[in-house]
């Protein structure tokens, strides 16, 4: 069935359009004047003003490696993140934990762990897939470098960015 779109009944002033132009100018000039007097504060002057303090908990910044309360990097080099990573930004070289180590039962650790931040798309798949809760997307977003090699985060850098996260899983504790 045909549906007739209801058209608004325009007043004479609206029909000749010029008064409505003035009404529009009043709105836009109001905004302009408010901006000039510094009354509006919507846009941030980025490098000086940042929104960092207001970032939500689930913000997806740079992926990092977190350590547990014993100072052990939680990663067990299972390479699931390397496998799932859509842009293939992650490179892991597993190493074996020696028998005399306190955490020998973990068996593997990442000898090298590199994330190419030029390739990373901040999708968070690595965090999602990680069975050890070892990799987290933290709130760092301004990742810069002057060369390609500088943009590759190595293990030391990733651990430094990740910091310590306690009270997640405890399956590698001594008593278990």
């Amino acid at each position, binding site marked *: 069935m045909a549906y007739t779109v209801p058209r608004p009944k325009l007043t004479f002033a609206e029909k000749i359009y*010029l008064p409505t*132009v003035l009404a*529009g*100018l009043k*709105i*836009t*000039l109001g*905004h*302009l004047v*408010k*901006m*000039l007097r510094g009354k*509006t504060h*919507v*846009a941030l*002057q980025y490098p000086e003003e940042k929104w960092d303090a207001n970032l939500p908990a689930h913000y997806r910044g740079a992926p990092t490696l977190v350590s547990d309360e014993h100072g052990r990097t939680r990663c067990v080099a299972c390479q699931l993140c390397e496998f799932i990573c859509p842009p293939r930004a992650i490179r892991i070289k597993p190493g074996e934990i020696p028998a005399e180590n306190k955490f020998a039962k973990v068996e593997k650790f990442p000898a090298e762990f590199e994330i190419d931040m030029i390739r990373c798309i901040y999708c968070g798949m690595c965090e999602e897939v990680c069975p050890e809760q070892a990799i987290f997307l933290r709130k760092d977003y301004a990742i810069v470098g002057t060369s390609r090699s500088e943009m590759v985060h190595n293990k030391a850098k990733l651990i430094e960015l990740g910091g310590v996260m306690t009270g997640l899983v405890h399956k590698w504790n001594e008593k278990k």
Partner: protein
Amino acid sequence: MDFLLQIDWFQILTSLAKTVFLLGIVLTLVSYTVYAERRVSALMQDRYGPNRTGFPTTLLGTKKDFSPFLGGLGQPIADALKLMLKEDFTPSYVNKFYYWIAPGLGIAAVIVGLAVIPFGSSIAGVPLVIANVDIGPLFIFAISSLGVYGIVLAGWSANSKYPFLGSIRSTSQMISYELSLGLSVIPIFLILGTLNLTQIIQNQVANGWMLIPGITAAKPHFPSPDQFLLWIPIFISFIIFTVAMFAETNRLPFDLPEAETELVGGYHTEYSSMKFALFFLGEYAAMILGSALIVVLFLGGWSIPFLPDGTAPGVPGIIAGLISVGVFFAKVAALLIFFIFIRWTLPRFRYDQLMTLGWIWFFEIALVNIFITAGILAYLSSR
């Protein structure tokens, strides 16, 4: 044919000097109009716009870059440098010859039109108009409608859909608005009885501005009843002329040829680097030409009350002349700011609305307006 055989060096040199002076002013004004556009649009949308780039005086050894007023005044220079350094890419599928001449045509038409604008009274006896022709407005209308060739050729030679649509729109828009543009100013010529822009301004200096009668150079006074009567058709023609000028210069609310939201970039979609910059330059120069014409025809040109207009006693001619240039470009700048305000206030017209406005309303109103003016003039002269 004597004037071809004798070389008048004074004429040649002063004309050259005036050309360089006017071109310098207009090109500077263009770049700062672009800056104003970006800044005003930002402020109207609660943003900041370009407010960082200052003049790089640190290169000369000062501690901080010079960045006065609201900041960002060095932005036009940076933009120009960027555009010159960009890659000038010519797509393989374009018609090379027309693709190359289109940007030049677009801007040349506008710059030639500037030649007849009287941008000041006179300096040391030299009238500040490059070509003091007796058909000023006709010349401008003729030349500026050639400017559409730039757009049409750009759209056609680019050999792709969106530019083509943009150029077709531009053609029909140009045709429908040139009519009312030309017809709307006829009342002015009926009243003043001249087509010479310098004489039009001198008339307004003596008898008050066309749009605001009573503002004479000597002493503002309350306009006479006759002037009030004539003010009605002048006001109508001012409205039509200004709106038609918006359409003529492809400005919102009539920017259908380049409607970014519909046609990617309109007629200059396939252009890059300096060729694109030429279109950009041409568009803004057309705005300046349009505003200058409005100022000359309706707002008294370079005349301003209480300030010398080049003939005032006691003021050196050079200073008075420079003041008149300043006044003229101040009025032009005010109109440009108005153009910018309108652009960031109104939404784009639909195509059929534009055509209706052009053909059914403005064309007829302009025609009737001519008869009204003629009637009023006949009534005034018969008394």
